[in-house]
C-alpha cells in the first residue's frame, strides 16, 4: 500500500471515531477509497480500532460487497434475479463472458472490466438487466452487449 492509502484509511477511521458498531461502514468506505480490501488494509484497521483482524476478515468475507482482489475500472453487474432468470439472463452472461473473455467474478486482463453476477437489481420489469457502474441497461439481448461495452 502507498503512504497516501494509509492517510485515506486514517481519514475514514477519524470519521467513525467513537461510534459503536462502525466496522461495516469503515470497510465500505475503505473499499470505496482503495477499490478493494487488501490484507495490509485490514491489518492496519485492526491495529487502529483494536478489533481483532480475524473478526475483520470474518466480516469482510461474510458480505458479498467486500472484495479481496483488485478490480477493473468498470464493474458490470449481471442481474440473476427471478425475473431476469425467466427472461434468459444466462444467455446475457454467456455473451458477456465470451465478449470479455473472463470467468464469472473475473476481471479482464487490461483491468477495464470486472464482471459479477448479482441476485437482483430490482429493475425486474426491464429484464434481463445489467448494470455498469451505476447505470442500468434493460431489455437486453445478447446481440446488444457489444455496443454497450463499446461505450466504455
Amino acid at each position, binding site marked *: 500500500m502507498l503512504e497516501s492509502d494509509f492517510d485515506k484509511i486514517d481519514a475514514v477511521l477519524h470519521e467513525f471515531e467513537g461510534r459503536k*458498531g462502525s*466496522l461495516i461502514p469503515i470497510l465500505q468506505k475503505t473499499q470505496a477509497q482503495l477499490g478493494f480490501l487488501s490484507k495490509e488494509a485490514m491489518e492496519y484497521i485492526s491495529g487502529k480500532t483494536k478489533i481483532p483482524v480475524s473478526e475483520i476478515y470474518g466480516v469482510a468475507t461474510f458480505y458479498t460487497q467486500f472484495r479481496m482482489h483488485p478490480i477493473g475500472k468498470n464493474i458490470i453487474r449481471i442481474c*440473476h434475479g427471478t425475473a431476469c432468470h425467466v427472461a434468459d439472463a444466462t444467455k446475457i452472461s454467456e455473451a458477456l463472458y465470451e465478449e470479455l473473455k473472463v470467468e464469472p467474478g473475473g476481471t479482464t486482463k487490461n483491468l477495464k472490466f470486472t464482471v459479477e453476477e448479482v441476485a*437482483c437489481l*430490482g429493475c425486474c420489469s426491464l*429484464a434481463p438487466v445489467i448494470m455498469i457502474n451505476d447505470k442500468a441497461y434493460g431489455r437486453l439481448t445478447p446481440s446488444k452487449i457489444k455496443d454497450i461495452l463499446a461505450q466504455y
Partner: protein
Amino acid sequence: MENSVRIKIGLASCGIAAGGLDVLEKVENFLKEHDVDAQLDHTGCIGMCYAEVLMEIEDDEFGSTMYGYLNAADIDDILNAHFVEKKPLTEHIVFSDKLGGKEKEILDYQTRIVLRNCGVIDPESIDEYIERSGYEALQKVLKDMSPVDVIEEIKESGLRGRGGAGFPTGLKWQSAYNNYADKKYVICNADEGDPGAFMDRSVLEGDPHSVLEGMLIAAYAIGADTGYIYCRAEYPLAVKRLRIAIEKAKEKGFLGSNIMGSDFNFDLTVYEGAGAFVCGEETALMCSIEGKRGMPTLRPPYPAESGLWGKPTNINNVETYSNVAWIIRNGAKKYAEFGTEKSKGTKVFALTGKIKNGGLVEVPMGMTLRDVIYKVGGGIIEDRKFKAVQLGGPSGGCIPESLLDTPVDYDSLTKTGAIMGSGGMVVMDDTTCMVDMARFFLNFTQDESCGKCTFCRIGTKRMLEILNRITQGKGEQGDIEILEDLSHKIIKGSLCGLGQTAPNPVLTTIKYFRDEYEAHINDKTCPAGVCKDLIKYLIIEDKCIGCGACKRACPVDAITGEKKEIYTINQDICTKCGACMTACKFDAVKKL
C-alpha cells in the same frame, strides 16, 4: 406563481434504465426552444414499468395526460403535437383524463395507500409531500394522542407486517412499549433481498417521507429516540433519496429534538447493508448494524425485549411503515374497510415475468390471483398458456393454474404451500421449466445460507446437487423422495426464516408439477425445453430454404451446409444457445 403546465417524468431506477434521462434532456431542450412555460419535475415510480419511459403532462387544456413507451426520439413530435398543434398524439398516450387511453382500467382495479404519492410527487421535495397531507399524522399523534392511543389505533386497523410473515404490527409495538428501558430503537428493514421484488425500492425512491413519518410515529408509540434504516447497498438511488429526505426533515424540525414543539426527540440514520440476503431476517439485521457477521440468533428473546445492543427494538419493513401515516390520518376503521377478515388493507406486488403489464401494483387484500394477473396485469405475454405464479421469492412457492382463484391474503396463500412474502409475483408460462425454477431458488438460498445451522448449510447443498443432476438428465429413481425428506428436515432443523422456508420452492413444485420431475428423471426430457442437457436443436428439412442465416448466427460454428442446400447442426459442437432458432425466419429450426 405556480405554473399551470406541469410535466413529470418517472425517474426511479427502472425509468432511468429505460432511458429516462435522455427523455428528460429532450424535454428540457424542447421547452427552451419553444419557450413553453412549464414546470418540469422528476417523480418516482409510476408503477407501470412495462410502459417506461413515462411522462405526465398536466395542463388546463387536456387535464392529466400520461404518455408511455417513450424514447428520446419521439419527444419532439409528442410535445409539438401537444403544445404547438394542440392535437396530442393519442398512440403514445397510456391514459388520460380527457383523451381516453387504453390502460386506464389497470389503475381502476388498484387501491393506492402505500403508493399514494409514488409517481405523483417529486421525492426530493418535502414541500410536495407536505402539500399532500404529509406529516399531518405526526402532528396529530404528537398533539392529540398518547402512545397507547396510537398502538390501539394500529391494532384496530388490523395492519400486519408486510415483510412476509404477517405478524400484527400493533402487537409488535405493544410489546416494545411494554418493555421498560432507558433506551429503545426503531429500525426499518429495507434490505429487500428477494430476487424479483422491488416494492420497497420503489417506495423509498418515490416517497421516502412516508417511511420516515411511519417510523416517527412508531418511535413515539414505543418510546424510542433513535432509528436506523437498513437499506441494501444495491439500491444507490434509494439511499441517496433517503439521505436527502432526512436532511430536509431535520431542516423542517420533523427530526431532531423537541419535534413540533413537543418533548419528543428522534434521530434517524441510514445504514447501508453490505450484501447478505440473510440480513433481511431481523436478528441477523441487528447483528449487522452492530458491525458483526449477519447471523440470526435464537428467539426468544424477541427484538421487542432485547434487540439492538440488548435494548427493546421495534423492527418493521418499508411497506408496513408507509401504511402508518395513512391509518392515523384516515382512521383505523377506514383502513379496515379494505381487505378480508384477517388480512386488512392493501398489498403492493412487483408483478414480473411473462406478464404483459409488468410493474408495481397495489391491490386490496382478498383480490384473487387470477384478477391480479389477468385484470391488473393484462394476462400472459403473447397470450401463451399460464403455468404458475411464484410468490414470496426463495421462501415462497409456485402456485398452479388450478389454484388461481385463491384470494390474496396471508392465510389463504399459506394454505397453498406458498407465502404472501414481501410481494414478488413472478408469472411463468409454458416455456418455464419448474424443475429449473426450483433449482434456481435453491442455488440462491444455498449460496446465501449463513452457515450457522447444519441442516440449512449442508442440506440445501445436497438438495442443489440432486436438482442439478436431475436437470442434467442424470436423475435417479428415489430422487424426489430424498428431496422431500431433506426438505422436512431442513425446515425442522433451521433457526431462522431462511432455512425454514428454503425448501418451499422445491416442495411446491413437487406437489403441483410432479410430472415434470418425473419426465426429467424417467424420460430424460424437459417438457418446457429449458434444461440444456435434455434438449437439442434440429433443422427441419422441408422448411429449410438454405439461406444460411443460422450458420452465420451460430457462435460456435456447429452448423454446416452450402447456400441453397439444407443445413445441418453438429450436435457434438452445439452449445444449445438457440441463436439459430432466433435467426431463422422460416421456422425451420425446432427444439426437441
